[in-house]
């Protein structure tokens, strides 16, 4: 805390008193005060897909804060920029575990979020920017869209934009023995964006991840938070290639977007042996704008695995944050507490059908509602408490609604709620598995957010 105060004091002194340097400094903030207004099943929100729904409701409400600040320094021609972002929270009211939510609030949890330099190569007339450091890294919102460390090059040639990147999400510092080479996990990324015709923007990309395991053995878990590359760390040998296309289109009041991906490769050296990965993902949005309303239909299919052989057919995300609804995904405003961040359940894939209506009621207020029917691509198979084999693929139907209101230009109040009419596949996550889903889930959250 003392160190931070000193840094801030130095910064303010320089900002207010210094002569004009060839630099532009901007400070930005996101002061997010969130509330779990009410949920009947707080046990549903236990980390990624590790929930155990009890028979009895677990009613909960709480308040929390998550504050972020960014400092952006740039030359006055914008050719060189540096970013530093840190985050505090989320700190729950009364939670002393992170040191600040309890009495006196003396503790502090500081997290570094961004720390990177972004500069234009001097000998290029077109865009040719390099970013290096801890930066927001976006491949595809269903595959990888989070912060990561690496070097990324963004360029442009006429109407074509291209990106090349090297990201190292795992660095191997430990070796089994001196003879073993470092087994880092490296990702190599390439993308080309172009406009094939008026109103259409398309992109083609490829991501290759490769790394050898450092920890001998280890189970490739497809349950809980196991089935995500982020969770694999350096436990396995991996060679995974993902190729895909994404884009959007607009024609008058019609609009849409798509994502198509295919994954191929291998995940080896698990306790259960080696796996060959072959999976795919498809998504489409179709929408229509009418006056102040917008109607959007969303469909996506993530392939799932239907047997225990060494062919792994389930689509695998790397690190994402899906916010498509309140109950299943991270759509609640208390977004550190959620069921899953991934666009699929376990290794069973996912099928989403969603119809959403958004309405701009006034300059200050936006309203919306959505209806979803969700399934897994392959049956969730398990043995119930009576030893019977169960399988089902129906997640259920969810209804969501939200309201956003600007109290002032930069201060927003928002409220949302989601109700999941759970279907039998949810029985897998219940404490008492009887083949039938017994618990519907309701979540309502709110926030007061100041962004500047």
């Amino acid at each position, binding site marked *: 805390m003392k160190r931070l105060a000193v840094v801030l004091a130095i910064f303010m002194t320089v900002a207010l008193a210094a002569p004009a340097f060839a630099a532009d400094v901007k400070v930005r903030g996101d002061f997010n005060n969130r509330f779990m207004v009410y949920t009947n099943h707080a046990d549903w929100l236990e980390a990624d897909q590790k929930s155990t729904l009890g028979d009895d409701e677990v009613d909960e409400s709480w308040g929390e804060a998550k504050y972020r600040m960014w400092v952006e320094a740039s030359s006055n021609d914008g050719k060189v920029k540096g970013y530093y972002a840190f985050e505090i929270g989320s700190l729950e009211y009364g939670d002393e575990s992170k040191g600040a939510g309890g009495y006196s609030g003396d503790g502090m949890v500081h997290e570094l*979020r961004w720390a990177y330099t972004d500069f234009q190569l001097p000998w290029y007339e077109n865009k040719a920017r390099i970013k290096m450091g801890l930066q927001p890294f976006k491949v595809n919102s269903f595959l990888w869209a989070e912060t990561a460390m690496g070097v990324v090059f963004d360029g442009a040639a006429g109407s074509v934009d291209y990106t090349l990147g090297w990201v190292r999400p795992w660095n191997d510092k430990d070796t089994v023995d001196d003879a073993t080479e470092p087994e880092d996990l490296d990702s190599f990324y390439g993308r080309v964006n172009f406009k094939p015709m008026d109103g259409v923007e398309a992109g083609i990309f490829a991501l290759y991840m490769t790394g050898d395991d450092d920890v001998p053995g280890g189970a490739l878990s497809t349950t809980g938070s196991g089935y995500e590359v982020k969770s694999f760390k350096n436990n396995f040998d991996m060679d995974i290639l993902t190729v895909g296309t994404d884009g959007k289109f607009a024609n008058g009041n019609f609009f849409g977007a798509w994502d198509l991906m295919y994954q191929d490769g291998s995940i080896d050296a698990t306790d259960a042996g080696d796996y060959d990965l072959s999976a795919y993902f498809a998504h489409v949005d179709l929408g229509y704008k009418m006056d102040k309303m917008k109607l959007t239909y969303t469909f996506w299919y993530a392939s799932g695995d239907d047997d225990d052989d060494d062919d792994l057919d389930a689509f695998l995300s790397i690190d994402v944050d899906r916010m498509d609804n309140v109950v299943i995904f991270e759509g609640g405003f208390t977004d550190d507490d959620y069921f899953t961040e991934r666009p699929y359940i376990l290794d069973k894939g996912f099928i989403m059908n969603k119809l959403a209506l958004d309405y701009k009621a006034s300059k200050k207020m936006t309203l919306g509602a959505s209806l979803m029917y969700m399934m897994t691509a392959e049956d969730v198979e398990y043995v119930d408490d009576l030893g019977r084999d169960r399988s089902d693929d129906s997640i259920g139907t969810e209804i969501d609604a939200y309201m956003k209101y600007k109290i002032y230009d930069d201060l927003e109040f928002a409220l949302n709620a989601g109700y999941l009419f759970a279907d039998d596949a949810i029985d897998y996550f219940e404490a008492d598995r009887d083949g039938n889903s017994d618990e519907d889930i309701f979540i309502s959250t709110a926030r007061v957010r100041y962004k500047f």
Partner: protein
Amino acid sequence: MRRLSCGLVAFVAVILCTGVFPSAGVARADDRIVERLQPLAGYVVESGPQGIVIDRGSSHGVNPGDVFSVLRPGAPLVHPATGQVIGRRDEKLALIKVVRAEAGYAVTVPLGRYRQVPLMRGQMVKRAAEQRLLFIDLDGHQRQAYSWYRDQTPHLQWDAYEAGRQPAVLGAVRQLARLGYDLYLLADGRQVQLFNADGELIGVRFARVPDPAAAESAASSTAGDAGGRYNLSTSERSRALTATYRQAATINGIAYSIDIGDVTGDGQSEVVFTDKERVYVYTLTPQGLKYRYRYQLSRWGTLMNVQIADIDGDRRGEILVNAMNEDEDGFSSFILGYKEGKYREIVTLVPYVLGVLGGFSVADGGFFVGQTFAEEVVYGNLVYRLQLQGDGVKTAEPFAVPLEFRLPGALFEDINHDGRRELCFMNAQNFLLVYQGGDRLWMSDERLGGSLNDTQVEVGTNKVSYTNKLDVPPPLRVVDVNGDRRLEVMVVRNTSAISTGLGEFGFLSKGGVVLLEYAGMGFALRPMTGELEGPVQGINVVENELLVAMVKRSDDLLKTTGDTYLLGFPLRQ
């Protein structure tokens, strides 16, 4: 001893005869205009579309604006009695003017009537050689100055003093190029000005403020002889050019973007502005504003800015309205027009930010263009020329722009008087840039622009992102403020109460207009209106008056509310 005495006498005689000590009232030998007219010879190194490069530069005393003759050796002059060659008279092929002087070379372009003359590497160039000069005495009291300048520059072809006093000549001082000379010297009691064949000002020498006691006795001598070499002023640089104004009209509410022009073709100016939800059209009358039309944005999106420009060549303005989609995934601009007695939407849902560069009308050299959208930075790399086609716009060829170009508020005019247009615009950091093609000619060393109007986009991932607010800058305008037939650029400069070298912190609370002008030392800024008590959201020139839209905010700084005042400043033209 005798030799020493003779030497001393000779020395004194030389001093007395050579006029090292100039007589009172006569211009000094180090006059800057004389310096610009001194002979200097060189050669053409390179000739092409980008200009003609000569092998003389600033280290040789070359300055931007200097005029060189491109010469071809003429026939030898043979003495009729002795048969000896006594010299050659060079033949003039063309006149070129210096647009940029580097240390060892200079870049030149041909003057107007010589643009079609082919020039080649190796040709000889000479400054102030084979050039006809006309001296124009504007007040009838500059005969002595004529004599002095002629004596200092005998290599020039001087017309008689009386030629510059002819009524036809005095009546054509604003159209010098028509008189057909290569150089012009215009003199009055205040200053001596040197112009080239195209009527462009090359140099100025100001007179010293005359001593009132000596003024009567020196009435027949030129006051322009005084002043010496101190012809620049720092107080002029810090004093507002036009500080007095009137309140022309009041708008209830904040006009985030405003433009004034004739939309209906009736000769009256319309005032068009937006409060980010609606577009309003008023007629500007001597009594104030008269309401005409209101357009309500009924779809998903936010209005950015407005511009009045003629895009169909009928010399009547259309209203270009730029808008961004609510979910920040692109532009959805549209165009309003006055057709068959009514205002209506003539084009909708254009996926560009629209503008007209290089003039009010596409019929007068203006370009109707659109810039693409880019995530997180709003303005993409590409600008295209557009054509109005029915109820839509057709995308034509690309319009080359530099990397950090932003179309709103940009300007495309010849502001350094070299015959080529420059692209001026405000970058994302609020610094003003001047580009010629791909070359950056100048960047301001202070922040300019600033606006209450901005676009907001999220930067980062779904979960970790900040809101990037990018100003939509008020437009740049060009005008000839000082009557030298050269355009200057008017730029809005808004500041906040906490204004530091690292940026503006807090809310914009003051504003004004500054002038960017190009003179002998390059681009320079000077105050034009002085400081106003609120930020300026738009500027226009209407009938020799600069109209400034200044916003006076309410006391509640968390809400952007207030009123907009149209203030009129007189322009010297």
